[in-house]
C-alpha cells in the first residue's frame, strides 16, 4: 500500500519499522514533526527533552543499554548537541543510534543557514541524505544497520523541502529487534585520555572502512543518461536537477554524504564531458572532488547562499528562464505577526514606551522586534538573552542596568536560559530578566515543555515551576504579572529595572491559540468617540485596521484581550470583558 507521507512522517515510520525503542528530541523547524509522529506509535518511548544536548545524551544512553535509539533536531540544535556528538563518535554504540538533523536553506524559519555536513566531517561520522519521503524511511532503516555494523552513531541530513514535502511511501511491518546485551566496557565507554587515545585510532580505522563502503554502497547511485552532462548531487538538489534534465543527463546521486567516495566519482567523471556539482549551501562535495584532482563546476556558478530550485539549475547551467507576468504595483510584504490576543504584545508595548534596551531571544516573542513595536535590540541563539544582557550590563555599568531587560520564553528558559540566570546571580549584575510564560513552546507549533504540566504523549507530567527555579538559584525579587494588564506590567518593568539587585518578572498568560483558552467577546470601536489618534495601532494587532477614516476591529479574529482599549484615552473601544 502506498500513501502520501510528509518527509518527517516517513522518518518516524522508518523508526517504527526499524524497531527503534527510544526517541528523545527538542523541537525545531523543520524537524519537529518527526518526534510528534514517532510519539503516535505505542511501541516507541518518545519524549521532549529540555534541549538538544540532553536529548542526544538520552538517545546515547538508551543505545548503550542496547536499544535502537534516535534524536531529531534542527541544524542549530546540533550546535547545542555537539559536545556529546563528538565524543559519541569515540565511544560508538551498542544498540544503533541515529540522529536526524534538519537544515534550513533559505532560512524559512531559522536564524542562520549553517550546513550540517560539516559536523559529520568534523566528528567523523557517517551521514546519509534522503531526497524524498520513501528515502527518508528507507535511509533510517539503513542508518540503524550501519550504526550497529560499524559501531557508530549515524547522522541523517534533512532539509526543509524534504522534511516538509509529501510524497509516496510504501509501508512495511515493524522489525522485531531485541535489546542488545550491555556488557561493561570502560575502555570503550569511559572517555578518559588513556581510553580515548585508543578509541581515536578505532574512529580513524572506521572512517577508512566507511569510505570504502561509499565506493560500492547502493546508497550512492549512478544513473547514465548520455555523455555530455554529468551531475553529482544529493538530497533535494537531485530532484531539482532531475526536473530540469530528466534522462538527458547522467547523475551520481550520493545517498551517503560522509565519507564521500573517490573512485566512484573518478569513474563517473570519465563518462561525461562536462561535470557539475549541484549542492545547496557549502561546497563540500566540490571541495572533495577538487582535492582529488577531479575537475568539476560548482560554486563558480551556483551560490553558497539560499535554497535552489529547478529554476536555479535551468538558469545557471542552460541559461533558460521562463516567461511570466507581474503586476506593476508595489505589493506590501506580509511578514508573520503576533496573533490577535497574543500575551506577548502588551509587554513589548511597555518596553517600547520606556525605550528599554531589550536583549532578545528566540520564540514567538522575537516578533516584538518587528514594527510597530520594534522593541528588541539583539537576537542571537536560544538562551543568549540572559547571558548577553549580563555582558552588556557588566560592560555598561549602572546606567545600562537601569535601562535594560532580557526577554525569554518559558521553553527557551528551560532550554538554556537557566544557566545564564545562574551566571547573572553568581556574578552579580543588577539585570532584569523577563520570562514570557505562555505555557507552551509556541513558535514551533505548540509542544509541551517542562513548565506546561504535560509530556509529549499528552500525559500529565511533573510541572517545573519557573518561579521556584528562579528563587532556588538566588533571585530574591521574583514577581508575576498578567501581560494583558498594561498598568501592572508597566509598574513591574519600571520598578524592577530600577532595583539594585537581579530580578525576574514572569509575564504569565497562556498562548491565545491553545485550545482551552476562552475568548472574551470581540471589542468594537465607537465611531463617534474615535478621533483617529492611531494610539491603538501602536501595538500591531492584526485585528485592528482603518475603515472609512476610523479604527475598526475585526470581530472574527479579535479575542477581546483588551490591550487596545487600555490605550484608548477616549473610551472609544468598547465591549469585551465588561459585557461578560
Amino acid at each position, binding site marked *: 500500500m502506498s500513501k502520501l507521507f510528509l518527509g518527517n512522517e516517513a522518518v518516524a515510520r522508518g523508526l517504527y519499522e526499524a524497531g527503534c525503542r527510544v526517541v528523545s528530541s527538542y523541537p525545531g523547524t*523543520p524537524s519537529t514533526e518527526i518526534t510528534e509522529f514517532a510519539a503516535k506509535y505505542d511501541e516507541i518511548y518518545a519524549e521532549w527533552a529540555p534541549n538538544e544536548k540532553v536529548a542526544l545524551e538520552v538517545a546515547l544512553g538508551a543505545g548503550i543499554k542496547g536499544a535502537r535509539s534516535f534524536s531529531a533536531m534542527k541544524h542549530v540544535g546540533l550546535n547545542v548537541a555537539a559536545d556529546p556528538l563528538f565524543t559519541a563518535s569515540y565511544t560508538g554504540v551498542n544498540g544503533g543510534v541515529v540522529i536526524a538533523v534538519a537544515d534550513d536553506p533559505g532560512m524559512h524559519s531559522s536564524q542562520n543557514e549553517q550546513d550540517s555536513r560539516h559536523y559529520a566531517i568534523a566528528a567523523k561520522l557517517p551521514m546519509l541524505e534522503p531526497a524524498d519521503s520513501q528515502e527518508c524511511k528507507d535511509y533510517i532503516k539503513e542508518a540503524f544497520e550501519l550504526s550497529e555494523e560499524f559501531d557508530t552513531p549515524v547522522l541523517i541530513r534533512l532539509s526543509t*523541502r524534504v522534511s*516538509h514535502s509529501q*510524497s509516496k511511501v510504501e509501508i512495511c511491518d515493524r522489525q522485531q529487534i531485541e535489546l542488545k546485551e550491555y556488557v561493561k566496557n570502560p575502555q570503550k565507554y569511559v572517555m578518559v585520555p588513556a581510553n580515548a587515545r585508543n578509541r581515536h585510532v578505532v574512529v580513524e580505522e572506521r572512517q577508512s572502512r566507511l569510505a570504502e563502503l561509499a565506493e560500492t554502497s547502493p546508497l550512492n547511485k549512478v544513473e547514465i543518461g548520455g555523455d555530455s552532462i554529468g551531475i553529482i548531487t544529493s538530497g533535494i538538489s537531485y530532484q531539482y536537477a532531475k526536473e530540469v534534465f530528466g534522462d538527458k543527463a547522467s547523475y551520481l546521486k550520493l545517498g551517503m554524504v560522509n565519507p564521500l567516495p573517490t573512485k566512484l566519482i573518478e569513474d563517473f567523471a570519465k563518462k561525461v564531458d562536462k561535470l557539475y556539482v549541484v549542492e545547496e549551501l557549502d561546497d563540500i562535495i566540490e571541495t572533495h572532488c577538487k582535492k582529488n584532482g577531479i575537475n568539476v563546476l560548482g560554486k563558480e556558478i551556483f551560490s553558497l547562499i539560499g535554497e535552489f*530550485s529547478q529554476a536555479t539549475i535551468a538558469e545557471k547551467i542552460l541559461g533558460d528562464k*521562463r516567461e*511570466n507576468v507581474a503586476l506593476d504595483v508595489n*505589493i506590501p510584504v*506580509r511578514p508573520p505577526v503576533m496573533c490577535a490576543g497574543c500575551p506577548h504584545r502588551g509587554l513589548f508595548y511597555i518596553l517600547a514606551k520606556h525605550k528599554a534596551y531589550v536583549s532578545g531571544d528566540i520564540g514567538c516573542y522575537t516578533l516584538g522586534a518587528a514594527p510597530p513595536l520594534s522593541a528588541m535590540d539583539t537576537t542571537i541563539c536560544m538562551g543568549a538573552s540572559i547571558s548577553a544582557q549580563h555582558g552588556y550590563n557588566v560592560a555598561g555599568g549602572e546606567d545600562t542596568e537601569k535601562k535594560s531587560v532580557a526577554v525569554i520564553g518559558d521553553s527557551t528558559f528551560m532550554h538554556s536560559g537557566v544557566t545564564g540566570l545562574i551566571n547573572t546571580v553568581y556574578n552579580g549584575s543588577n539585570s532584569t530578566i523577563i520570562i514570557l510564560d505562555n505555557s507552551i513552546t509556541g513558535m514551533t507549533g505548540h509542544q509541551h515543555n517542562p513548565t506546561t504540566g504535560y509530556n509529549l504523549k499528552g500525559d500529565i507530567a511533573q510541572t517545573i515551576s519557573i518561579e521556584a527555579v528562579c528563587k532556588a538559584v538566588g533571585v530574591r525579587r521574583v514577581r508575576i504579572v498578567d501581560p494583558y494588564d498594561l498598568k501592572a506590567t508597566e509598574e513591574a518593568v519600571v520598578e524592577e529595572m530600577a532595583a539594585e539587585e537581579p530580578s525576574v518578572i514572569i509575564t504569565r498568560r497562556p498562548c491565545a491559540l491553545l485550545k482551552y483558552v476562552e475568548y472574551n467577546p470581540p471589542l468594537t470601536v465607537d465611531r463617534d468617540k474615535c478621533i483617529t489618534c492611531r494610539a491603538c495601532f501602536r501595538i500591531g494587532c492584526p485585528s485592528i485596521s482603518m475603515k472609512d477614516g476610523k479604527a475598526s476591529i475585526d470581530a472574527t479574529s479579535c479575542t477581546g484581550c483588551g490591550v487596545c482599549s487600555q490605550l484608548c484615552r477616549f473610551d472609544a473601544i468598547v465591549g469585551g470583558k465588561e459585557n461578560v
Partner: protein
Amino acid sequence: MSNVFSIMLVGVGGQGTLLASRILGDVLLSQGYDVKVSEVHGMSQRGGSVVTYVKYSNGEVYSPVVTEGEADIIIAFEQLEAARSLPMLKKGGKLITNTQKISPMPVITGAMNYPDDIINQIKELDVDIIAVDALKLAIEAGSSKAVNVVLMGILSKIMPFEEKIWQDALLDNVPKKAISINEKAFILGREQYK
C-alpha cells in the same frame, strides 16, 4: 518535464491552505498519479504569507516546488496574495482567487497602502482569472473557516475528476463535526463555476 502539472495554493497563515492541499493531494493519489505536496510550516500560524505546492504527473514528479512561470493553476485565498503569486503563473495558466482582503502589518501601521483594484489589473494582463467572494459563501455554509473548501469546490469543476472522489477526500480530511458545513461549502463552490 512537460507532463508535470503544477498547482499553487497561496494565502495568509490561518486560512487553511494546508488542509486544502491535503485534500487535493489525496484526490490526485486516488487517481493513480505520482504526487508531491510541499508545505511551509513554522511561521504559518502567525499571519504571514503561506504557499503550498501540489504537483502531479502520469510519470514521475521530481521537484516538490513550483517556480516562476510554472504554475498551471494558482488558487489564491486573498487578493494581495493573488497579486504576489502572479509571476509564478504559467503563460495560459488559470488563477482562481477569493476576493477577500486581509491587510498585512505595513498596511495596518499606515506604512503602505493596500493596492486598489487588483483583480481588474490582473484581468488587463490577459490572465484567465476567476474571482469569487469565498468568504461570503463560507459564512453562508456555516463557518468563515470553510473558505478553503469553497475554493476546492471551484477547483473541482476545473479538474477532470468526478465529484464523488472529491467528496471522499473531503471526508477523510475534515474533522467529523465540521462535515456538513464543509459539504455545503464545497457545493456552493462548485456552483460558482459554470
